[in-house]
């Protein structure tokens, strides 16, 4: 079936929902497509808060937030975008409160705020209380609140419709084509449908599932990013992937940085607060890339707990009241998933793959751009984790993911509404579903007996975790590249056992694995090329940051034998790059 709309939003996390809300308020005929139900989106798992310089508890300014963001990103941040982020964080948080978000409150009834990693007062002096929060369920409250508002405004949802291809009119994007809609598979019956629209927003989230230990949902397979890549749009800064310091050992579920923001400490086997040696000023509230590296150093030096590959997060001294009122969910996670009681025992933690700094390149209006001089793909937008504006540069600060998806989701919706008022709806495209139908049928129609997608996914996740993780070097990256190529070849021959049409999740998982393989390939190639250490990309064979050669964003274009890399400059407006110490 062909559905004509004026705007399509792909993904119903925070960015997608806020964009949809803006479009609904403007009266634009909009559909939101999600492969889940909206309230299942991964925004809901964000815990610690959303930073905005409200200054409710101490002096704060958006310029300080902007500076922290730029420095936290090891100066690879586009500063025009960081300025937008820090300024508009304030009004978006206030607007969320007006929508009904149940923030924790100060004694005088204002939004409560707490400290968070890398967020400081007066350009790095000391930690500042900037993170606005609702216990350790801030993402849940954001997702619920935005969905509630969408219900109120009558937004049209297509739940459990998985977008599997993008449509363009007037040629592919590189040839100047404009977005014309999407192809989606209805999970309930396997039918493919086209959704035509003037404006398409990709808000599909991250792709942490390429790693074995990750905080990311099973559904985070980089669909939007990979679809762009396959249509010739380059993807930006893929070598930068954040490992969050405090994941639950072995399974990666996140224990929020809020635990450290409230005063929790990290301890090694000797009981030392080892962060003293790595970031004397901010200690445990140093940015995540630095804390994760410090943990690896401790583990390598044999100071992991019992000599093993994890350390302790200790919140016992915070007392029952703080733990139960401000950190209830992560306390519960430690109890359920580790059998540890945080009130009386330290909690074993290790770094977990958490966040993609890179993604689909956009400008500050959330318009997708397709080359080194930022030529816009008309009608195509991206926001949230799948996009790269770039406000996170080489390393994202805690809470800035939520700030990003709120600020740029809102901007995307507004810009889409303006754009939709200026163009005609694209005409139906003949056979638009055929390329992806052929891809899916090739998997489904292959004779049984081949390898399973699950087996290949397991090997991919292992090699990415072992060789493309917190520390990297040329040799291991080359090994990883060969492995990813081998897995790509084997992927061409996989087969599945489920040949049905109703909720064929095996087919979908196989299709999603194709996305993960593409994005893993790009990640490895971009990491191998960048012969410096910056933010989350830490090369042991090139331990220094090299601004002369590498103060630039990578752009990976799909080529015949893998990605081809080009580069574009970083926007620097207020803050010249400096050495990064905390």
């Amino acid at each position: 079936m062909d559905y004509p709309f004026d705007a399509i939003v792909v993904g119903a996390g925070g960015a997608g929902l806020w964009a949809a809300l803006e479009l609904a308020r403007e009266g634009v005929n909009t559909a939101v497509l999600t492969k889940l139900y909206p309230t299942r989106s991964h925004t809901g798992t964000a815990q610690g808060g959303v930073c905005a310089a409200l200054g409710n508890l101490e002096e704060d300014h958006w310029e300080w937030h902007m500076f922290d963001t730029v420095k936290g990103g090891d100066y690879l941040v586009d500063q025009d975008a960081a300025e937008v982020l820090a300024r508009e964080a304030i009004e978006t948080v206030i607007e969320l409160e007006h929508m009904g978000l149940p923030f924790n409150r100060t004694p005088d009834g204002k939004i409560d705020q707490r400290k968070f990693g890398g967020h400081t007062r007066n350009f790095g002096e000391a930690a500042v209380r900037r993170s606005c929060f609702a216990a350790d369920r801030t993402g849940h409250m954001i997702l619920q609140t935005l969905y509630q508002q969408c219900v109120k405004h009558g937004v049209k949802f297509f739940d459990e419709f998985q977008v599997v291809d993008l449509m363009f009119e007037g040629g592919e994007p590189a040839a100047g084509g404009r977005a014309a809609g999407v192809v989606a598979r209805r999970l309930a019956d396997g039918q493919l449908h086209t959704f035509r629209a003037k404006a398409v927003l990709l808000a599909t989230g991250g792709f942490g599932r390429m790693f074995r230990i990750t905080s990311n949902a099973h559904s985070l397979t980089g669909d939007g990013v990979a679809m762009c890549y396959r249509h010739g749009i380059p993807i930006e800064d893929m070598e930068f992937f954040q490992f969050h310091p405090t994941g639950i050992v072995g399974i990666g579920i996140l224990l929020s940085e809020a635990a450290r923001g409230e005063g929790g400490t990290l301890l090694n086997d000797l009981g030392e607060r080892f962060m003293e040696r790595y970031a004397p000023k901010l200690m445990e509230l140093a940015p995540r890339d630095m804390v994760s590296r410090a943990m690896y150093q401790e583990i390598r030096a044999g100071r992991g707990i019992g000599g093993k590959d994890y350390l302790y997060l200790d919140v016992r001294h915070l007392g029952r009241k703080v733990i139960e009122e401000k950190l209830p969910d992560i306390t519960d996670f430690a109890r359920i998933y580790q059998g540890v009681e945080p009130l009386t025992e330290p909690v074993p933690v290790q770094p977990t793959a958490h966040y993609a700094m890179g993604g689909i390149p956009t400008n500050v209006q959330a318009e997708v751009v397709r080359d080194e001089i930022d030529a816009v793909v008309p009608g195509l937008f991206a926001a949230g984790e799948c996009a790269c504006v770039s406000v996170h540069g080489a390393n994202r600060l805690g809470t800035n993911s939520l700030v990003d998806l709120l600020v740029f989701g809102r901007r995307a919706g507004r810009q889409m509404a303006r754009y939709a008022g200026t163009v005609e709806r694209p005409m139906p495209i003949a056979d638009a579903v055929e390329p992806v139908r052929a891809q899916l049928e090739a998997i489904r129609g292959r004779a049984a007996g081949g390898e399973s997608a699950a087996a290949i996914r397991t090997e991919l996740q292992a090699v990415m975790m072992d060789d493309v993780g917190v520390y990297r070097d040329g040799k291991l990256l080359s090994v990883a590249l060969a492995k990813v190529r081998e897995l790509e070849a084997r992927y061409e021959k996989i087969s599945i056992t489920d040949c049905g049409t109703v909720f064929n999740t095996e087919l979908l998982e196989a299709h999603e694995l194709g996305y993960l393989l593409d994005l893993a390939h790009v990640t490895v190639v971009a990491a191998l090329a960048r012969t410096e250490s910056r933010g989350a990309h830490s090369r042991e064979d090139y331990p220094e940051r090299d601004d002369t050669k590498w103060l630039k964003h990578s752009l990976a274009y799909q080529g015949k034998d893998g990605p081809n890399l080009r580069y574009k400059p970083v926007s620097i407006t207020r803050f010249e790059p400096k050495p990064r110490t905390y």
Partner: protein
Amino acid sequence: MNVDLRILRYDPEHDPAPHWETYQVNVDPMDRVLDLLIKVKADQDGSLSFRRSCGHGICGSDAMLINSRNRLACRIRVDQLGRKISVAPLPGLPVVKDLIVEMSGFFGKYRSVKPYLINDQPEPERERLQSQVDRARFDDTTKCILCAACTASCPSFWARPEYLGPAAIVQAHRFIFDSRDEGAAERLEILADEDGVWRCRTIFNCVDACPRGINVTRAILEVSSAIVGRRG
């Protein structure tokens, strides 16, 4: 250790009716039931279908009937269940395939209770103020993740599928008791309907089922009292 995992399977394209299949799975006692389902799908039968996303009890995708109780598969460990584990779709909702149930009716009821802040006053420049006591008043019901474990555990709902059910009432409660909200009257009118709160027989299954520890029955009773109070 090995466990016997019994799963109620149903493929609408092939099976005349749901039927049990048993799988031997080698597991760690700390594994969750979701891990087991993923293992079966990866190693034994790729066609096994179930919803899952976050894998740690926040997204609400994987509510199912596990050893006769509604729970999230990602929140219940093998060592809490023993060597014999049975898994079936949520009761009282139409089964689509294997462990996947039809959720549109459930979300329709959610939408019917006006689950959003109603306040037509002009917005202040900054945040609305709310005391910590007022904020705490509705904290419990803000935790709801719409997993449907409560509604699908409710005998009143099984007997009368038109009943709004605990989850929708919890969502209404979250706004009725929010000091910033002005929509209580219109919501209470919906909830006073013959398929509203009066169908609750205080059986407490919903409280047992809720993976977020919400005192669902208390929330329903508070809504009932608010309706009575308004009438009085």
